[in-house]
Structures are given as structure tokens and as C-alpha cells.
């Protein structure tokens, strides 16, 4: 909408949203100054992230699920002549992403509290970059101007690039991974920019004035002829398919996750990649409904391949970080199926999958990090028999594994079940193929659990490369090997418990009572579906 006023705010609550976007940026700048006092920097960063989380909750309570499509909206002109605005607002889907990011950041900071950084890097820089990135990703989810979205989409690569390239694994490898990550995403972004400008010029040719305003653009472009839509769709699609990684655009992710510090890896798979799925839902479907439907089989094929291929590759990894990356690729496949099956259940499943995946995979990666702190290795074969020595660590690892394999009663089950039952209605073949992923998930999770946690004590964690002791030695053994091993490594400490506790609670809570979450997401999903031309009868209750 090209109003004459430069600044407009519709509905209440916009200042809150603005605060959500800006606070972490401010925090990041301030924290960066505490270079010489790591403790102060960390505490300040954590405080900022906690206040930020509270702010996202305020936004959550200011949002009315049954209200307008975009709420807490506000806009200011940026480049008026091109119809570019600084405009933000949230729908139910974006809202869930904001709260998720808000909640995840303090957890990641807490988990990174004692991160061993490469030489010459300060904790202040590390935490500052994380906060800056939080701010940018918040803005990406809240943007309601397509050009603004593009700019943020690209800018958020910068802190991430430095986080991987500056704070990750050994020198050259981490820089290789960072550059690879950057080039991939950047290239995708360029294609998106091309499409965005294409959209602009299409709007201009139809209405006489070009704009990047999401709502206007959507209204006009969605009626474009199919051929045009397909071209424009492609640009956005590639950007998002790289981000969310669908096979075969995925190879940057395992490298990036492997070379990142664990906390950054959590952000990468838990948050940044979600922008891809979010983009499908927010941009591809409403803006190019005809193209989305025409090309759905293509995306579904890629997604199902992602489910099966990602699962099989996960089963074949020995590095636990790469394992998590491939698990994520499989999960993104599920989300892709959900988005492009176009039923209320599958879409709600995909949206909640975004949240649940962050919790489950995030927790898995964090626990992997905690294991590696003790065993000084991310290789699964360097471990064995941890369950006897560190039962609590083993228990949380197992729980993270259970939600990763979507066991009923955990949060992920709700999403996966909704994706599958919903997509079966319109796409039975793809749904059945994806269901096979359930078996593979059990395979790769239990394989890793058995390798690391079960069997005889083994590995570097106990100061030996070779199997250290055979537990089945019977009463003949001189000293109790388990007690000895317990002296070498400790179970979860207080900080680690504090970090994992909220995730454990959420896993069970959202597994048994997901209704509030579903109720927030559902109206926005229905609106998205309506824009694709799928009618959703919200009153069609259980008969």
C-alpha cells in the first residue's frame, strides 16, 4: 500500500516488536566493548538475551490468533521512489519463530559459557556476534517488505560468517566451511533479489507504481500468468532450498556445522535454516500460488529424497556434529513435504516442526557438545559405555534422541504426525515414502546411542584410545572400573542442567499438550492456504 505518509503504524504493539528487533543489536554493541572482562561480557549478553526473551513473550501476548493476518505492524519509508519500506509485523508463523529464537538464545549462551575459543578471540566478540545475529534474524522473520527481507536475508550472513570462520574448528577448515556457507547462501540470495525485482517490475507494469510491500506485492503477483510466476518462484525457491537445505543443495551444512562451535551450530540448524522453510510459507506460497502448485511435485520429490537420503547419511557419519547436520537435512525434508502438500494439517505440522526441530536437534547438538567437552572428540567411535559413568548425560542424550526420532509423547511427534497424516490426504505416495523415514530415524538414533552410551567403557574420555576396561570382568576385577571412570569424568554440572532443563520440559509439554501452540499457528496457516486457493473449513470439527 503506497500511502502518502512516510510512517504508519497499524494496530497496537508495534513498539514492542521494534524493541524485539533492536534490543539484541544494542546488546551486541554494548557487549563488544567488554573485551577485557569476559565474565562481564557474558553476564551482560545473557541478561540482554533474557530480557529479549521476555519481550518476545510480550509480543506473543499482544498477538490475537483470531485477529488480522499481520499484527503489531508498522512501516516507514526507506527508498520512497522505489516503494521500499522499513516495515515489520508478525503473523502466527513469524511469531512462533520470534519466541523460539528468543528462548533459544539464552540457552545457547548458557551452553557456550565455557566455550574454548581459538587463540586471539574474545568471549565478548563471540557473544556480541551472537546477539547481533539474533537481532538480524528477528528482523528477517518480522519483515513485511520484500526488499527489506532480502537485505536482511543477506546481512544476517555476515555475523554468521564470522562466527563460523572466526570461532570454529581448526584454522583453514573452518574458513573453508565459512566461505562455503557464505557463497551458497549469498548465491541463493542473489537469485531471490532478481526475483524480487522481477516482482516489483511486474507490479509496476500492472498497477503503474512499483512497490516491495509484501501485502500489495502478493495481491498483484499472485494473479500473474503461470509462466511469469514460475520464473519468479524459482528465484525465491533456490534461495530457500539452499537455506533450508534440500538435497542436492545441502553439502554446505555438514561442513558448516562440523566446523562451528556447538552453540553456533545450534543457531545454524535451529534458526538460520528455518528462514528457508519460513520463506516457502511466507513468500513462495502466497506470492506464487499457481507456480507453487505446478512445481509442488518437484519440491516434494526433493523433500522426500531429503528425508531418506539425509537419514541414510546420518547413519553413516562418525562425526557427531555432521550426524546432527544430516539429521536436520532429513527433518527439513519432512517440513518440505508438509509445506507443499497443501493441507491444514500438513502445514501446521511443518510450522510446528520448525519450532520442534529447534528444540530437539538443538538439544541433541548441545548434548553432543557436552559429551565432547568430556571426551575431547566429536567422533562417535571415541566413546563407549558412557551411560554407566554419566547417567544423567546419557539420559538427556537419549531423550534428545527420542524426540529426534519423533517418538509419540515428545514434541516432534506432533509435527511429524501432522505432516504425514495431512500430506497423505493429497500426496499419499510421498507421505508413505516419508513414513519410511520413521524407521531410518530409529536406526540412526539408536545406533549412535548404542555406540556412545552402551557397551564396555571405551575411549579417550577415559584417557585411553583403546578399550579401557571390560566391565564384564566379573567380581575378579581388582578395582571397580566404573568408579574409576567416574573419577575421570563428571556427570552434568549445574550450568549444563540449567541449560537442558527448559528443553526437557518443553519436549514433554509440547508432546502432551500442544494445543496452545497449534491454536496460534492454525489461523495463519489457514490464511496461507486460502491464498494458495485451498479452502480450509475451520469449523469442520470432529464429526
Amino acid at each position, binding site marked *: 500500500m503506497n500511502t502518502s505518509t512516510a510512517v504508519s503504524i497499524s494496530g497496537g504493539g508495534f513498539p514492542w516488536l521494534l524493541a524485539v528487533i533492536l534490543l539484541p543489536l544494542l546488546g551486541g554493541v554494548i557487549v563488544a566493548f567488554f573485551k577485557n572482562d569476559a565474565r562481564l561480557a557474558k553476564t551482560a549478553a545473557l541478561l540482554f538475551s533474557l530480557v529479549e526473551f521476555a519481550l518476545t513473550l510480550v509480543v506473543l501476548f499482544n498477538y490475537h490468533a483470531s485477529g488480522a493476518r499481520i499484527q503489531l505492524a508498522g512501516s516507514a519509508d526507506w527508498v520512497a521512489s522505489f516503494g521500499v519500506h522499513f516495515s515489520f509485523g508478525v503473523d502466527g508463523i513469524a511469531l512462533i519463530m520470534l519466541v523460539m529464537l528468543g528462548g533459544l538464545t539464552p540457552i545457547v549462551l548458557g551452553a557456550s559459557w565455557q566455550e574454548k575459543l581459538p587463540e586471539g578471540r574474545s568471549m565478548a566478540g563471540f557473544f556480541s556476534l551472537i546477539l547481533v545475529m539474533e537481532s538480524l534474524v528477528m528482523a528477517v522473520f518480522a519483515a513485511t517488505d520484500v526488499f527489506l527481507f532480502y537485505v536482511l536475508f543477506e546481512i544476517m550472513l555476515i555475523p554468521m560468517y564470522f562466527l563460523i570462520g572466526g570461532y570454529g574448528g581448526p584454522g583453514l577448515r573452518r574458513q573453508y566451511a565459512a566461505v562455503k556457507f557464505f557463497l551458497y547462501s549469498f548465491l541463493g540470495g542473489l537469485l531471490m533479489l532478481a526475483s524480487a525485482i522481477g516482482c516489483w517490475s511486474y507490479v509496476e507494469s500492472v498497477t503503474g507504481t512499483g512497490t516491495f510491500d509484501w501485502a500489495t506485492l502478493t495481491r498483484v503477483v499472485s494473479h500473474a500468468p503461470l509462466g511469469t510466476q514460475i520464473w519468479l518462484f524459482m528465484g525465491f525457491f533456490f534461495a530457500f532450498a539452499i537455506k533450508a537445505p534440500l538435497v542436492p543443495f545441502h553439502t554446505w551444512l555438514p561442513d558448516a556445522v562440523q566446523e562451528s562451535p556447538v552453540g553456533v551450530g545450534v543457531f545454524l540448524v535451529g534458526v538460520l535454516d528455518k528462514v528457508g522453510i519460513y520463506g516457502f510459507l511466507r513468500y513462495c506460497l502466497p506470492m506464487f500460488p499457481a507456480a507453487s502448485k505446478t512445481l509442488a511435485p518437484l519440491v516434494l520429490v526433493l523433500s522426500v529424497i531429503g528425508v531418506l537420503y539425509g537419514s541414510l547419511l546420518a547413519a553413516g557419519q562418525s562425526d557427531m556434529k555432521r550426524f546432527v547436520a544430516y539429521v536436520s537435512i532429513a527433518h527439513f525434508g519432512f517440513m518440505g513435504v508438509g509445506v507443499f502438500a497443501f493441507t491444514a494439517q500438513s502445514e501446521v505440522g511443518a510450522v510446528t516442526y520448525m519450532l520442534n526441530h529447534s528444540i530437539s536437534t538443538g538439544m541433541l547438538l548441545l548434548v553432543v557438545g557436552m559429551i565432547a567437552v568430556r571426551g575431547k572428540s566429536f567422533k562417535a567411535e571415541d566413546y563407549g559405555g558412557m551411560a554407566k559413568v554419566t547417567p544423567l548425560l546419557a539420559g538427556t542424550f537419549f531423550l534428545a534422541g527420542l524426540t529426534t526420532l519423533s517418538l*509419540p509423547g515428545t514434541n516432534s511427534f506432533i509435527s511429524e504426525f501432522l505432516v504425514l497424516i495431512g500430506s497423505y490426504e493429497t500426496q499419499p505416495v510421498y507421505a508413505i515414502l516419508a513414513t519410511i523415514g520413521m524407521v531410518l530415524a530409529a536406526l540412526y538414533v539408536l545406533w549412535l546411542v548404542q555406540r556412545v552410551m552402551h557397551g564396555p567403557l571405551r575411549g579417550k574420555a577415559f584417557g585411553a584410545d583403546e578399550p579401557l576396561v571390560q566391565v564384564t570382568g566379573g567380581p575378579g576385577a581388582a578395582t571397580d572400573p566404573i568408579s574409576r571412570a567416574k573419577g575421570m569424568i563428571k556427570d552434568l554440572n549445574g550450568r549444563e542442567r540449567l541449560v537442558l532443563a527448559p528443553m526437557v520440559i518443553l519436549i514433554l509439554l509440547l508432546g502432551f499438550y500442544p494445543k496452545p501452540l497449534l491454536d496460534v499457528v492454525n489461523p495463519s496457516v489457514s490464511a496461507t492456504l486460502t491464498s494458495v486457493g485451498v479452502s480450509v473449513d475451520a469449523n*469442520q470439527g470432529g464429526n
Partner: protein
Amino acid sequence: MEAVHPASGVATLSWLLLALPAFGALVLLIGGKRTDKWGHLLGCLTIIAAFVIGLITFINATGLAVADRVQELHLFSWIPVNALQVDFGLRLDPLSLTFVLLITGVGGLIHIYSIGYMSHDRDRRRFFAYLNLFVASMLLLVLSDSFVTLYLGWEGVGLASYLLIGWYTDRPAAATAAKKAFLMNRVGDVGLAIAIFILFANLHTTQYSVVFANIHTLSPGTITAIALLLLLGACGKSGQFPLQSWLPDAMEGPTPVSALIHAATMVTAGVYLVCRSNPIYDLTTAGRLTVVFVGAITLLIGCVVGCAYDDIKKVLAYSTVSQIGYMMLAAGLGPFGYALAIVHLLTHGFFKAGLFLGAGSVMHGMDDEVNMRKFGGLFKRMPITAVTFGLGYLAIIGFPGLSGYFSKDAIIDAAFNQPGWEGWVFGLAAAIGAGLTAFYMTRLVLMTFFGKERWRDQKSVNGNDFHPHEASPVMWVPMVILAVGSIGAGAYLSIGHRLSDWLTPSLGALQERSAGPLSSIEITILTLVLAAIGVLVAFVVVGRRDVPVVRPERVSWPVRAARANLYGDALNETLIARPGLWLDRALVFGDKFGIDGAVNGIGILFRGSSGRLRKLQTGFVRSYALSMLGGAIVLIGALLLVRFSG
């Protein structure tokens, strides 16, 4: 189908049935070591309390008019998304209440027994937490009022069994067995899941009452597909062909777990699912026939393999495979067999739990030894175990008057009474199975309790001498109670159709027909004769000769095949595991050098030397902006060209 009523009176408290065991599990898991002292007592108390509530609800239900006996209790809305409204609700009807009594009753006895059996384990309270989780999941499985909540309990049982089978996690065999159980269950679960998807896509609900009322509106092909997919799920959970091979491996868990899995809970879930879905199976002859086939094949596999093993628990495990096969066979007979399957399920619950606890008592007294070749003459050393075990043995071989006689013979009778070739094939399979059962069970009893005391000059698995002794009362009292059930349950439940009449509101009336080649008397005589032959052969082979302590390796081909589980594992290994592993390795290789190789080829152009990399990093923003501009111009140009030329 009877009409469904909202629950009232004591039935509204039935959520406690789930909440109590679940609460116990939660307290024990969160409490950790702090609950060491009283954890096992809490576990037992919650199960016993659940049993009492179940009993009151049950008695209350018997007082209702027949038409009012199917009740539903809505608890909360679980997964509501538009047309999909999955509620957390319970269905209280004769079938589910019967299961509740079995699960909490036998489960409670096993709990009590475990206090003694696990007394030396320093993680005993965690063991009780898992047991409670198991019972809670199983109760949810049978009490749920929709397929989705059933699925929640279904996988919960799978989880609990994984934890319990893999209890001794430091033993690689236990960890592998646990993983195998979970995976094979998951294969079955895929079937169940897809069945749920089909039901929802066609009927827009997953709730039993609505599904069952409208299932007839679907096409016959769809109904058959659903029935077969449900059967796949049932095969996974109940250890039926072709997913049977996890069940014997599951013996790696502590013996009370074996009793729990094999008698009161888990394996009965598949039979429950088929019986619960009776309105679906009623409409598909092909589906029912497949169930019967699966049951018949499995019961024979179980018997044959059971004859060859020397591991006391493995023999009992295969006997379970085979007995569940009987139940499946019965369930596949439709209205002629649902109730018979449940009757046998209950009597089996008693005698098999008794047999497993007896085996556990033997192991307890024999330093965890399971090799029957090292046993012998234990009757004198552990008389209570021997007598209770003996009663379970007589029950399972169908000794006239005992439990198995009534429940198994009814199934054999019904199997014979099928028209045409089916009567002969299924009837004979069931009858031959009875003969084989008599053989291997007699062999087991003779090798364990009678004959020479071969353990005198042997060492146990742990390298100790044997000092066989009777178990403590906390262990043998449950065994005695179960033995009483082994004697009387069959007669009590069968005579006068007591149980089948009670189950009518859930399963429909039990029908009988005499379509088969033989009369009832002839079938009974045939079965008894076959069983007697089995017993006699066992006496000749085992009882009258010395049992070699070391297993003879020069044996005929059938024995070798049976010892190799009829090549079930080998088949899995060659057809699935090995190709899967190779595929996996190929994919990992391809991902690294195929897809990523292509990417890196491009990447090298950008990367160059490390010096240029640094340059890229320092001149970051500038080059970023520049390349963004350049790339954008090219792409926009191309796109606009396409648009305006097209």
C-alpha cells in the same frame, strides 16, 4: 456394535489407571538416587493401586446393563487441527477392562517378584521406573479410544521394552537386542501409522466409535489395505512372522522383563489390535485369511525352533512366539475366534508369566545360568519352583482340566471348523503345534528339574560353582498365585462361555459352526494323542538318556536349521542389513565426492590460496557489495529479458 455412553460413576476415575503408574515412573526418574530406599515400593504400590481401581471399575461395569457397558471418558484435546481432532480419551468397555485386570494384575505380581529378583542391582529404582513406564504405556494402549492415542501407548511400550531389554547396557548383546526390538517394532509401526493416515483421509476421524460405525462406507479394497497394515503393526509388536526374530533376542533383559513382555503386556498388543479392530476385520475375508496364515506360520516356526534351543529362556521365548501365533490364528477366524483369542491370551498370561518367573527363580538359584544342559535334578533343590513351574507346564501343553486345555483346544477346534481346505490346513497346523509344544516343554522340564545333577561338576557363566537354592517368598508367592491361575483360569473363563459373553459388547457374539472335517470329540482326541506323542518322544530322547553337557554339533539338517532360527536372522542379514550397509557407504562416499566434489570444484575458483582467503575476509564488505551488484545486474537482466520477450 453397542452404543457408546459417556463414562459415569467410578469410571470417571479411570484416568488414575494411567496417571498412577506414570506418576510413579516420573518420581523415580526425576528423584534418582534419592528414591533408592523406597523406589521399588512406590513402583509396586502404584501398580497395585491401579489394579484396585481397575477391579472396582470392572465390577461396576459388570453391574451395568449389557447395552451400557461401552463407555468413553474424554480427558483433553490433544492434537486439534481443523478436521483432525485427536482427543485424549479412554474407552472403557469389557475388552479394555479385561486387559486392565490382566496388565495390572500380572504386572503387579511381576513387580513384587522384581523386588527380590533385582535386589542386588544398584539401579533397582530405575528398573522400577521403566517397569512402571511399561505398564502405563500398555494401559494407555488398551484404554485409548482412538487409533492415535493407541499409537502413543504402542510406541511407549516399544520405548519401555527398549530400555528394559537393554537393561544390562554394558553387554553388547543386550544393547543390540534392544535396538533390534525397537527397530523391528518400528517397521510394524509404519504399517499402523499408514493405516491411521488412510482412516483419517477417508473418514476424517481416528476415534474408534466413529471409525467402526462408518467403516462399511469404504471400498472393500481400502478396508483390506487397512486390515493388512494394522496386521503389519500387530506383527511387529507381537513378534509374528515375518517380524518375529526380535522376540527371542529380547531375552537379554532381566527375567521379570521377559515375563512382563511375554505374558502380560507387549506381545499381546498385536492380538489386542486385531480384536479391537474387529469391525474392520469383519468386512474383509482376505484380511482375516492373512491373519490366520500369519498365525499358523508363526505358531509352527515357534514350535520348531523351540525344540532346538538349550537356553531355558529362549525356549520359553519361542514358546511365546508360538502361543501368540495361536491367538493370531484365532483372531483371524473373525467372529468365530476373537473371543477365543482373548481367552487364550488371558490363560497364557497366567501360565507363561508363571513359567518365566519360574525360569527366573531357577536362574536366581543357579548364578544366572540359562543353559539347561548344565541343569538337571533341580526338583529336590527348589521344590516350590518346580511344582509351580510344573503346573504352568501342564497348562501350556493342554493337560486336560488345566487352563491351556480349555483355551488352546477351543482354538484348535475352531481352526478345524473352517470350510474346505482351510479347516484341514489350519486345524492340522494348530494340532501339530500342540504336539510339538508338548515335546519341547517336556524336554525343558526334564532337562531342568529331573535326571542327573549335571551342575555338580560345572561352572556357571560367571565362573562360579553352583549352589542351587529356593528363592525367597517375595519371589515364590507371585509364582504360586500364577500357578493357581494356570490351573483354574481356563475352566473359569471358558465354561459356560463366561468370558466370551462378557466380551460381546466389544467383540460381537462368539459364533460357532461345525463346518470342518472332524467332530469336536475327534479333534480333542487327535490333539491329546499328538500331545501325548510329544511327551513320550521327549521322555525317550531326554528322560531315558544322559543329557550331554556340551551341545552335540554333528546334528541333522533340520536341527541345524532350527538352531539357526530357521534362518530368519540370516535372511534379514542378507536381504536387508548387508545391502543397507553397502548402500549407506556408497551414499556417504557419493555425497563427499559426487555432490560436494562438484561444489568444491567451483569453490576452488573462489578460494585459491589462503592468502586470497584472507583478502576475501578483510575486504569483505567491499567485495560483498560489489559482487552483489554485479550478480544482481546480470540476473535481473536475464529475467526481465525472458519476461518481456515472452
